């Protein structure tokens, strides 16, 4: 681009120079940390996303060098481009913080608080958002909206009650798959993500809607209820895939691959591959390759230590190396007299029950033969 002129913008008293045409949100993300406004609908890797959820609203206290008047209302930082000399207030503005608490309250009005059941819990952006910016209680006393359940196939589980209508999945289907088969039907309070005629979503690359969904509305059905994310071991792995980059994060328990997702960066978005394009992964990688032998494991995934996912204690080399039994070595070759094999007593994690091999969620019958 010829007009790569840099403009200076000050966000929360931190100045940065960015190319003209950058949005305030992206400029703030360049600074990083808490200065970056949260975003529920904007996804930098999807064209046209943003402008819907209002969580990224910021205060512009000085429009630009030429026109220093402040903007009269809070603006959506994902859709507003920077001007030279612009001054933006995000967390330093009490107006913004108050507004954000209000937006969170509105987003949660119809959100069922079923985090204990939801598979997204632990990596849910709405959970993070409400913890960081929301208020403790709810003032809503009415029946939350409910929907007729739609079955959208064996791979993806739709929970419409959890949806916040960010449209990310619609953009994903438009931009990544051959044909979009789902969309937002109806209007206002009744709008819902669905296929118009009961249809299963099985276009290749449609699995990426699971990764872009900021809440638990679209979750992996092959992983449904198998385990909580914070008990799994996230590892970077790759395979030679003809249709996608093949660079994924495996979520293991022991040697079993419970779930495969794309690699996500600090903003919860799919990471760029070596070619500079987002490393979306295909359905084969995501849903069918559930064996450790299918993958070349690179190493443990680095997880932010403030995330609950780091509660699994698998950081660093732990989890990559199998612990060795040292009893005999330290007792000069003597074998233990009394040894309790936990698998003989315990009913959990039976070696003959492989949850990762079950398609879809486990049911009572899957555990019946376990004893």
């Amino acid at each position, binding site marked *: 681009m010829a007009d790569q002129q840099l403009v200076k913008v000050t966000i929360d008293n931190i100045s940065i120079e960015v190319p003209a045409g950058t949005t305030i949100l992206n400029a703030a993300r360049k600074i990083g940390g808490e200065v970056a406004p949260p975003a529920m609908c904007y996804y930098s890797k999807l064209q046209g996303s943003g402008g819907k959820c209002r969580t990224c609203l910021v205060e512009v206290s000085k429009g630009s060098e030429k026109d220093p008047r402040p903007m009269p209302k809070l603006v959506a930082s994902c859709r507003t481009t920077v001007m030279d000399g612009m001054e933006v207030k995000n967390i330093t503005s009490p107006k913004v913080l108050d507004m954000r608490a209000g937006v969170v309250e509105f987003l949660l009005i119809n959100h069922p608080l*079923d985090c*204990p059941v939801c598979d997204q819990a632990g990596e849910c952006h709405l959970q993070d958002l409400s913890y960081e910016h929301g208020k403790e209680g709810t003032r809503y006393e009415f029946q939350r909206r409910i929907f007729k359940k739609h079955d959208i196939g064996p791979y993806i589980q739709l929970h419409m009650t959890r949806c916040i209508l960010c449209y990310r999945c619609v953009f994903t289907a438009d931009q990544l798959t051959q044909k979009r088969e789902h969309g937002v039907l109806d209007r206002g309070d009744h709008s819902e993500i669905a296929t118009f005629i009961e249809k299963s979503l099985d276009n290749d690359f449609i699995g990426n809607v699971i990764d872009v969904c900021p809440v638990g509305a679209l979750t992996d059905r092959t992983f449904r209820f198998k385990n909580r994310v914070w008990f799994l071991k996230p590892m970077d792995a790759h395979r030679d895939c003809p249709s996608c980059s093949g660079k994924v994060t495996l979520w293991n328990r022991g040697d079993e691959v419970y779930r495969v997702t794309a690699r996500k960066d600090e903003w919860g978005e799919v990471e760029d591959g070596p070619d500079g394009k987002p490393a979306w992964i295909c359905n084969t990688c995501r849903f069918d390759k559930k064996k450790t032998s299918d993958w070349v494991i690179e190493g443990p995934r680095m997880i932010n230590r403030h995330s609950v996912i780091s509660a699994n204690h698998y950081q660093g080399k732990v989890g990559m190396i199998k612990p060795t039994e040292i009893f005999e070595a330290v007792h000069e070759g003597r074998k233990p007299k009394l040894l309790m094999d936990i698998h003989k007593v315990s009913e959990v994690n039976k070696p003959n029950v492989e949850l990762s091999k079950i398609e879809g969620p486990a049911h009572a019958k899957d555990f019946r033969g376990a004893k």
Partner: protein
Amino acid sequence: MDALTNRAQAVGRKPLSLWERLYLPAIFKGMAITFSHIFRKQPTIRYPEQKRPFSPVFRGLHVLNRDEEGRERCTACGLCAVACPAEAITMEAAERLPEEKGLYREEKYAAKYEINMLRCIFCGLCEEACPKDAIYLSETFAPSNFNRQGFIYGKDDLLIPNPKTDPEGYEKAKGRKEPTTAG
């Protein structure tokens, strides 16, 4: 060498006095103290016929709770397991089928739920973490056992009796908060 402190005392090598050498007075004095205890109030409690009152904050063996309709409350969310400092709790979740609606409260439930009482330190963090009021620490201890195998508590051992089919057992397992002994 100087002493480190000035508290050292020299051992007295004084010969015993006549009173001390008589020996029996000291014996009788000691026996008087011993036998005086017969007439005191006994602190012994005849367990198990008689039980000590529990403190209202006593944390004993876990129970998995049911709701009024007898459905299991636990949804296997894993918060007790992640809160557990001793890593005693493990579980496996399953999806509720339409015909199992009377058994489980939510669409996800704990197909297997296990507490390793050898590891448990009875800190009660699981009770605090539970978002569904599903796990409680009751006013009973884990019974003793000669084998370690007996301390792996599964769902059969932990679940409270169904209030619909066994209301007496349910009331008993719920426990009382007033003292369990009379006086």
